[in-house]
């Protein structure tokens, strides 16, 4: 009975751990920052602007979508850092139905703003708890942003360059291992984004001295990693026998990126006695089976 109860407790424990782990909940078991959630998959057809959402005589209505930071002082602030003037009597509606809003106009709420191009003010805000599909380009409304100070260039910002687009990149890690490594040993990639678990990513042997693994990472991902034989005591060492600093890899914009490394030594290597593998048969180092007479070196 006791055993059964323990079994049940263990099963519940394991189930809890698995449930937590599979949903990425366990602390220290850090994955890559998750893939960006997809935009709303079903396109939302914007409801018609309400009757009062009419442009000034000199303007037209254009709409773009964004996320609110704040609404105050007659301005709507978006997460782009821009403040836009709210027209007197502007309407707040539900983005999906055009009816009364179901979420308050507050920080984090997504909004579809209808701009009167005549005066640059927002005449209607359609609110949504979920991200909204894009409509007008930012450039079309950027000119309506209100700021006291004149815009000044920022030398911190990169004026040129492609940057990282965050798309998935197939990264192929190939590592050459020391030739003395026992044939049946498993090689792993330990990374900072997996909490430095020594068995985070198992690699596949492709020939006598090479292991390989392919993983998708988002471009721009910064990865620190080390190779191990499954424990930190067996982590890679440098050619000089010393511990190596974690390798740094920044995932570039590419479809496929190959990374080739060489491991010269493992931490659990014994240079004086070749590693013949587990269960090595009788040798002078391990001469007697099971019930042993006096041992030898």
């Amino acid at each position: 009975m006791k055993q059964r109860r323990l079994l049940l407790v263990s099963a519940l424990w394991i189930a809890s751990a698995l449930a937590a782990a599979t949903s990425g909940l366990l602390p220290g078991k850090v994955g890559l920052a998750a893939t960006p959630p997809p935009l709303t998959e079903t396109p939302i057809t914007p409801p018609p602007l309400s009757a009062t959402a009419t442009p000034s005589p000199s303007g037209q209505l254009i709409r773009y979508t964004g996320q609110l930071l704040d609404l105050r002082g007659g301005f709507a602030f978006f997460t782009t850092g821009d403040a836009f003037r709210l027209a007197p009597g502007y309407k707040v509606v539900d983005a999906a139905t055009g009816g009364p809003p179901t979420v308050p106009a507050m920080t984090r709420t997504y909004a579809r703003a209808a701009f009167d191009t005549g005066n640059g003010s927002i005449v209607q805000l359609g609110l949504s708890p979920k991200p909204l599909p894009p409509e007008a380009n930012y450039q079309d409304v950027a000119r309506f942003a209100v700021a006291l100070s004149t815009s000044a260039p920022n030398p911190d910002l990169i004026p040129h360059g492609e940057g990282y687009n965050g798309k998935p990149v197939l990264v192929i890690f190939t590592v050459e291992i020391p030739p003395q490594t026992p044939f049946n040993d498993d090689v792993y990639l330990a990374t900072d984004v997996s909490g430095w678990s020594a068995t985070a990513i198992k690699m596949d042997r492709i020939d006598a001295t090479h292991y390989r693994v392919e993983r998708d990472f988002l471009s721009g991902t910064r990865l620190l990693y080390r190779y191990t034989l499954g424990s930190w005591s067996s982590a890679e060492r440098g050619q000089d026998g010393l511990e190596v600093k974690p390798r740094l890899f920044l995932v570039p914009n590419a479809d496929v990126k190959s990374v080739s490394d060489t491991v010269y030594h493992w931490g659990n290597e014994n240079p004086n006695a070749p590693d013949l593998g587990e269960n090595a048969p009788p040798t002078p180092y391990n001469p007697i089976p099971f019930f042993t007479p006096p041992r030898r070196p």
Partner: protein
Amino acid sequence: MLAFAPGRAAAQVGPAPFPQPPTTLTPPPVGTPAPGLQGAPEPSESPSTPRPARLSAFGVTAKRVAFYSNRYVLTAEGAVKLQLGDGTRISANTFFMDLRLNRFVAAGDVTLVTSSGTYHGAAFSEYFDFDRAYFIPVTSEPDRWTYTEGQYAHPLFGREMPGDAFFLPDLSGQSVFCYSKKAVVDPRQSIRFTPASLNFGLTFVPFPTYFLNFSSNPNFAQNALPGSEVDGPYDFAGGAHGLATAHLRYDPADNVFFAYEQHQVSANHYLVFAVSPLTRPLKVYNLLGFDRLSPKVEIQVSLQETAFQHDFSQPLSATAYGNLEVTAGLHHSYLQLNADQYYESLLSQPQPGIGGLLYYGDPSHNWVPDHPNDVSLSWIGYRNPIGKLPLYLQLRSSIGLDHDWLTPLYDDLPDIGTIVTQWSHGAGMNVTTQQIKLLPDRSGQHRDLLLTASFDKQRQWFSMPHYIDTQVETASLSRAFTPKVNALVSYSITNTGDFWGSKQLDVYPPTSLSGMNAAYSPFTLEQFPGYSAFRGFATVRSLNEQLLFTPTTRLTLTFSMRENHDFPVPIPGLPVISGGVTFWQNYGFTPYQFTGDVRYRINNILALDVARAYYFNFGGYQRWSPEFLITLLR
């Protein structure tokens, strides 16, 4: 790093370089790390200069603080109050921090209280790695201010800001690992939640506090705990250099028990102590130490004591093992000193008990004062190319000493006597080929037939007149048939020999392992009289074949077959459990073994690996491995 538009989530793990100015709302504007930007963290290194107070640990309180472990983001909602390291206070409606990018946003009805004044605005963003803060104040009208190096009295007016400076991610559908009311965040190091309600999958469990370490220093991952089947860690205290963890564990031998582990680390050292189980009599105490004394010299210590003691009372038995390793890098080579100390008992000699036996408590805790030890100094050369040949050569040599006064290394050898101390010295070499294209693939699809071979030879001479030779020859052929199918065949021969010259038969007498003394299977009691032919010379021949199939990056199937023809023949053994895994503890390699391994990556964090081996009825009872080996990799 990206600059993000509304509706897109931060998806990067990396430094927080400055993105380009906003150009469009969708798709997100892009940013590029600027070469030489200050603050870009070095891997695993502590900052060489102390961080200014304003960039150090800060506190967050709110009605609800939440930590999303799979995104590594911290959020706070409702009456958010921040206190930065320099005393600056910020209140807002909402707070979001990407712990990997090391920056936060406070938004909605923001009040910023600095040493130079109080300001109101819509949002405030802090980039710790670059010591830049961005603020959207609302005075008579909105504006954009940038603070550099904490100069709140002198904002840079109107400066363009990174396009995603105020990005707030969509976290709907994401699971929360920890809820709290208060968090103290040490950028790029840790968070302390007080109190904490932790997600255990089925429910949230309240704790008075929870310490989350997310330092990129791998020394925090050093593990001094012995293995167990299930382990639930709870980090309850810590800091930039320390971490205290209580563990609730389970294994079949001890059932459910507690353990404790303590880390003290820096970029160049670690000290890890663990005791497990805390709540069972047979306790294992481990201490791991490492210090890089200089860029070319490092020292590593490993100490283990195993004690049978109720609670923390006087142990009935206590054994210990200590290992010291000192490594010194030289020009194109290195030296390594390795010393082992084994203490069969740390306790003082007890009074004789029943039958004059020496023991504590009862005879099962017998007292054995044995103390074997050994030390060796090795020189290992670099792997150097041999001229223009496709070969590498590596040389090594060593000197060493073995000593055991209680259990002699050799007992009553004819003409030699009893030996308790033995010196040795050795030399070895390894020659390895580069990958040689045996049959080049003319199609350019990299489907060459590749040959790799290695030859390793070592001889170790002893002060006793004998020497041990070890020779390993390996050759392998591999080929990628398609980008998804890879095959490998490898053959290796290992010869070991203990050469005693005229005393060979004294050391390996023909009769020592025959008849009643014959080696036998502890499971079936089947005798293996062939061991009486063992004269100190063994040969292992292994043929390995492997087929690797990776239909997708998520799924990997590996099928491997190993055939061994060895002398002496292997002896089937018992099933044993180690680290929660049951396996056959054979003596020698099974003659035939087929292994299938399926690995499926569930998500970015987890992979499931399922493997099982078949032993072709070895010993008449070993067919399949005792159990599937199911491993959750993370």
